[in-house]
């Protein structure tokens, strides 16, 4: 075995079980999605699926970089998890959540173990994936605690349950997937609109995300327009990632994860040349246009005589 083959084998040994479990988890989410009727939970499950897909892509990249070929099939675990998810989603939402939570807890352990052994790129990859797994696990725990009302579930959370849910029900905001308290109040839309729900805290946070040139005009917008724009912004990718890094990370007991904006990494680029005109010595060729009679002809004459067109600028 060459040293590269050994490195691949060693990495595969760590990565493959994680990948298999993540893929099985995605298959389980897909099975649950097919039966889920609550739109807010559909969005939450899609968010969870997205996180798991991101973890798989990171793991796959690690293997590919070494020249390895990832096995992305999920195997028997996928079949079992899918079946379990299909069954539990028919029983109750809480059964689905508990099944997912168990699977996620196992993943957290595996990622933690992998992280202990890893260095450099792999360490950064496992740390990121572990963060997603922990966020997902805590999200599920919070929903279970709210739905079950059991103290034991709530106790596992790093913050009081009230920080996760302000209202009486376990609703899932379509930005942060919780239902947190805030000043501006929650936003909700129903039929004929697709069901849309943004919790009060997200409403506050999204208002702060608008660029200043637009934020300064929001008071002038009709209230329906203002509400629609807040919802549009809240379900956008950047706003959702902001919610994950700035809100869900701390609510999972992790430090906030806030990336460095591009402008802070910008460097001054030296040469700035204007768009070049025609090459030196380049001349227009011989143009031959058949000019017919009538409206089309008048137009073609105008079109190929710039000064006539300028009258319309």
């Amino acid at each position, binding site marked *: 075995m060459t040293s590269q083959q050994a490195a691949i084998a060693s990495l595969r040994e760590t990565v493959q079980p994680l990948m298999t479990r993540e893929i099985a988890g995605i298959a389980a989410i897909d099975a649950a999605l*097919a039966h889920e009727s609550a739109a807010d939970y559909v969005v939450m499950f899609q968010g969870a699926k997205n996180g798991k897909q991101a973890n798989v892509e990171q793991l796959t990249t690690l293997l590919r970089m070494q020249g390895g070929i990832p096995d992305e099939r999920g195997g028997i675990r996928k079949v079992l998890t899918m079946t379990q998810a299909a069954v539990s989603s028919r029983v109750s939402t809480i059964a689905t959540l508990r099944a997912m939570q168990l699977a996620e807890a196992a993943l957290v352990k595996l990622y933690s173990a992998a992280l202990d052994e890893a260095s450099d790129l792999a360490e950064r990859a496992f740390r990121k994936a572990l963060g997603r797994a922990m966020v997902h696990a805590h999200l599920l725990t919070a929903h279970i605690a709210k739905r079950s009302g059991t103290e034991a579930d709530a106790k596992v959370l790093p913050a009081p349950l009230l920080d996760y849910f302000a209202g009486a029900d376990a609703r899932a905001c379509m930005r942060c997937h919780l239902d947190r308290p805030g000043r501006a109040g929650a936003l909700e839309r129903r039929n004929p609109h697709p069901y849309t729900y943004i919790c009060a805290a997200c409403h506050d946070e999204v208002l702060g995300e608008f660029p200043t040139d637009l934020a300064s005009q929001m008071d002038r917008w009709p209230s329906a327009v203002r509400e629609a724009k807040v919802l549009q912004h809240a379900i956008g990718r950047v706003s959702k990632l902001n919610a994950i890094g700035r809100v869900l990370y701390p609510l999972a007991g992790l430090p906030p994860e806030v990336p460095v*904006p*591009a402008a802070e990494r910008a460097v001054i680029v030296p040469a700035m040349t204007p768009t070049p005109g025609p090459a030196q010595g380049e*001349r227009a060729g011989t143009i*031959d246009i058949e000019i017919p009679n009538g409206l089309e002809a008048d137009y073609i004459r105008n079109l190929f005589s710039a000064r006539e067109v300028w009258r319309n600028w």
Partner: protein
Amino acid sequence: MLTQAGMPSRSFSQQDAGVDIPQWVPSTCGLCSIGCGVEIGVAGGVIAGVRGRAGHPVNDGRLGPKGLNQYFANRHPSRATSPLIRATAGKLVPASWDEAMQLVVDQFNDALATEGPDAVAIYNSGQLLLEEYYTLGKIARGGLGIATIDANTRLCTATTASALMESFGADGPPGAYEDLEKTECIVLVGHNAAEQSTVLWMRILAAKQGPLHPKIIVIDPRRTLTVTTGADLHLALRPGTNVALLNGICNLLIENGTIDEQFIARHTSKFNQFREIVSRSTPDHVEATCGIPQAQLRTAADWIGRSKTTVTTCLQGVYQSNQATAAACAVNSMHLLMGKIGRPGCAPMQFAGQPSSMNTRETGADGTYPAYRNWEDQNHMRDLAKRWNVPVELLGKKPIGAPEIFELCEHGYTKVLWNIGTNPAVSMMNRSTHLRTLNGVFLIVQDCFADTETAQLADVVLPSAMWGEKTGCMTNAERRCTLLRKAVDPPGEARSDLEIFLDFSRRMNLRDRSGAPLIRYTDPEGAFNEWREVSRGCIPDYSGMTYEKLAGSGGIQWPCNDAHPDGTVRLYTDPHFPTEWQISESYEKDLETGHEHTLNEYRKKRDPRGRAVLVAADYQPPLDTTDDRFPLIAISGRQAYHWHTRTKTAKAPQLQEAAPAVFVAVNEADAEALGILDGDRVRIVSRRGSVVAPAKVGDVVPAGVVFVPFHYGDLGQEHAANNLMPQTWDPVSKQPVQKSAAVRLERIEAIAGGQWWQVEGTR
């Protein structure tokens, strides 16, 4: 002589003076979405001329000024001829392909491994070839597993796709250009065809002198060349009020009884809801909102309603404006009300803006999944996973549009941006923010020119072949796919975009589930043949096309399959629409927020089961509002002689001379009030930036409105219209609003006797 469609033949050509051209290679024009047939003249291994293809079903010999002049860009000395890498000293220096590609792959791998798929993004073009888009989409979705891929078609015709999905269940323009010769009424909404679609406008004017003598209605705030050369009626509405006006027309169609009740009952849904919404757009309301006199509105509704056949075209005046998707849907609804769809002379003609925009939408290079598959439908994803032999669990990611991709870059989530064949340093709204963003990401620019504004900010430049230098297909705005043959070699070490993608995929070690390379083909025809299979049985079905079949034709309109081996002129002739949940490309989005119904919501409550949807929305004012500090509205647009950010057209002598510099069109009343004379240098200031340009005073724009062409944007100069535009986009199509900014005008300097195009420093 008339073609089968009824269009008279013409003959347009340009070639280098005194050069004998021994070889003419059949191709398609590489500018705008009309898809004119051209022949490329080759002499001594270089392009020495271009001529319109006689007998071609799109143009039959015609070409516009840009089409006739496009080959000057191919041989310009600023072509990128070798890879460049930004050295530690900050300068871009030549490198080998190995060095450049390894750097690209290292950056991708590092970001993907440590941060995940959001950390990399691909922003491509509307000017590549079908085979290249398909390959790029497969690499992104099936290989890298990213959702952060989009094309600059987001800036031109993303709204076309969205509106077609909302109204009919899936993308795919229903009509054909030959409908223009078979109609009694043509309505152009926000479409300055005389400057943007010059050959189409020639066809329209020829048709106007034909037996049906169609009435032509132009809806545009400006008195454009289209208005002056062919309109029978001009509705000069206030910018951003398309929805109010179109609702007003629909309201009058219902009031006048010029609707097809049987068609509505059998083939559409939501009529009552639609009627209730449009009934609020009374002629009074339209006059107050849009500034259109009631008599004009009634005439328009009368002509549209009483003609037996109607074609309506839309372009950027709809797609880059306020409420873009709602307005484009209103046009679709207007046709559905009258049953004017799926038969000769009747079509809502939602246009594309670039020669292969359609292919980005079909293949998935715009972030959707190939062949109009719905990302939320697990059956669609299973089918694709099977055809690609990749795990289905890694598909089904919600598309992320270009404005959000640039936001991801801005906020630091995306660290590596691969920019292919496009120039966002000029074309993106709220430009100063985006310039900082482009500066801050690791920027890979793959382009045929090394000196575009975006390339000047790059960390790596990959030189690519351009039009005429590679083989592949383009599909135009009437679903017509044509084959473009390579006529000449690219300069220096430049490679076709397909070759670069194949190299990237190999270096990234992208594999399918069996461990075989993800991309197995090695040439354009191989890519096309795989695409045929991936599209087989889908809405844009190419399975019946082959290179051989395409080479011998003027293009084939999809669907082309066993049932329709010669292609299909019109969609929805039955008329059955793909709105059933099993085939629909999307599940109906909220026009105000962009949020989509879930599968179960749609399946249980919304599914129109094969009927089209009469989509309507109330008018809402633009977000960037006028006030005492910013009392005017700035709109932007294009000119007959330039293409996008001039990277190609500025290099053609005739075009550059015809449109040498930026200007601002100002109404004479506004100019007088501000003491501005024609040619005076002025500054247009918005809440986010400014433009300095000579004023062109006249009556082309109405009072209260200024117009700036968006082609210009040299770095370090205040010429770009996008300096003014806000960072807002349509909620459904995610197309930026680039035709509405509140501004003020300041005179900087009087130029005695000056004329707007002669002012020093504006070139």
